[in-house]
């Protein structure tokens, strides 16, 4: 048995500098460690970044199509109008009072008055080329009316019907028309769009989370020896996890930035060349890029995907059993 214990050179030596006493403390160490890990595991990191890039690209492409379809539907929904006819012809003062009452109803966006002359002009415009039919017909035969445009959120079939019920209670209002059949079809189409969007978007999101989390799980599994060694030399769970989570954040940020850059590039190329293979001008057709808040959301989504993907995977591989 060796009982002698010679002087330990380091026991008497100056206390070592600890990393949290240095510039940026432990955070500096962890970020440095994460960057070094990326450098030492280039292939694994490239694989993760490419996976995140494709995942975010898929989601953002879906959103781009959805946002533009929604925009087209919104523009189309401007045609949802309620036309109200009066019991009797109104004087300008009576019309002003009635207009105030209608504007006061919930769901009204704007109101416009269509006089007998306006009505005749529109009728004539519709009969383009056959205006002679109306020769000798006085404008008094057509009634004056009021056209009510509803707010965007009130353009569903049920909402319009409810509005019409409220409108009919206003005294002075006679017949009300709102194209029930057309509106019902339009509402069905809008519901279909919404449900398809949610289902498809949900599937894409699930697939993306599944693929990315499994890729990260595999990459962490490939480094399980590193986790084991760290655990053996006395690293706390947090010490082991933090550099991996920083790596996850960096991978997520890089992947989503790349995806958005690719999406932006594709969008510009499409704008320039759409005229060659489509019979529409994308600019006049109202095709737009994703709004800034969507881009920010997608970027943050990528970062969170990297962060939580690492966190969840590490939970499985980091333990004190070695």
């Amino acid at each position: 048995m060796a009982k002698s214990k010679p002087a330990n050179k380091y026991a008497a030596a100056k206390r070592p500098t600890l990393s949290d006493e240095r510039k940026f403390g432990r955070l500096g160490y962890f970020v440095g460690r994460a960057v070094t890990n990326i450098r030492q595991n280039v292939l694994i990191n490239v694989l993760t970044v490419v996976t995140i890039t494709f995942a975010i690209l898929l989601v953002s492409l879906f959103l781009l199509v959805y946002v533009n379809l929604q925009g087209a539907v919104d523009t189309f929904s401007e045609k949802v109008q309620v036309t109200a006819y009066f019991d009797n012809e109104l004087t300008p003062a009576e019309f002003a009072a009635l207009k105030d009452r209608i504007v006061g109803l919930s769901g009204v966006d704007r109101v416009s008055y269509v006089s007998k002359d306006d009505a005749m002009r529109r009728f004539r415009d519709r009969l383009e080329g056959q205006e002679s039919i109306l020769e000798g017909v006085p404008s008094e035969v057509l009634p004056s009316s009021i056209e009510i445009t509803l707010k965007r959120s009130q353009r569903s079939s049920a909402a319009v019907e409810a509005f019409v019920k409220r409108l009919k209670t206003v005294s002075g209002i006679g017949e009300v028309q709102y194209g029930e059949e057309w509106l019902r079809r339009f509402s069905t189409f809008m519901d279909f769009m919404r449900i398809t969007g949610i289902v498809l978007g949900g599937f894409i999101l699930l697939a993306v989370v599944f693929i990315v989390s499994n890729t990260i799980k595999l990459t962490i599994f490939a480094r399980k020896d590193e986790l084991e060694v760290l655990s053996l030399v006395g690293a706390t769970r947090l010490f082991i996890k933090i550099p991996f989570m920083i790596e996850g954040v960096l991978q997520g940020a890089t992947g989503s930035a790349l995806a958005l850059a690719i999406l932006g590039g594709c969008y510009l190329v499409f704008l320039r060349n759409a005229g060659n293979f489509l019979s529409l001008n994308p600019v006049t057709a109202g095709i737009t890029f994703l709004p800034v808040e969507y881009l920010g959301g997608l970027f943050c989504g990528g970062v969170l995907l990297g962060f939580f993907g690492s966190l969840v995977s590490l939970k499985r591989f980091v333990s004190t059993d070695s």
Partner: protein
Amino acid sequence: MIQLHNVFLTYHKEQTALDGVNLRIPKGDFVFLTGPSGAGKSTLLKLFYAALRPTRGQVVIDGKNVNRLPEGQIPYLRRMVGVVFQDFKLLPNRTVQENVAITLEVLGWGQKDIGKRVYHTLKQMGLEHKMNSTPLRLSGGEQQRVALARALVNEPRILLADEPTGNLDDANKEQILNLLKEANIRGTTVVVATHDRRLIDTSHRRVIVLDKGQIVEDSHGQE
């Protein structure tokens, strides 16, 4: 330093790995654990660095009862226990210096102090000229010395070695044994699990023989 009182350990409720082990290894001791495969040598070592907890009985390491040690305290216990394995467990994408530095990074040392200490330890192991090599460019003996350097760089109170010479030729075996002895002389308690009868016979140290999870012999050698 290490005390076991009536320790039982059962895997999957059936397979008994340790069967009523009582053991006391004082501070500064150098002990060989030996016995046939499956005798419980590695299981015993795992208890010493809290990778396993006993099914029954008490395990006390440097005054800390492993049974009652909270999960969050295990890393702190491991910081005073160095471990070496037959398969070295070195990280192939890090240099020798980085592999050894891990132990000190975990302790929170600054890079300058780490550099000095790692160099000193690698010099003790005769590997200072290989600092920037990656483990795969080293021989088996050199890799084991790197693993030993990683385990000893923070001067742990206990060093556990599980078949440390299993993959080595005679010259390298002797070199590793000498390094273990040097660590012991510097005050570290050393426990070596091995099959290697020649290594045990030439060392003249305390030998604990295990069989079927029980200590069947405990002989104090004389150097």
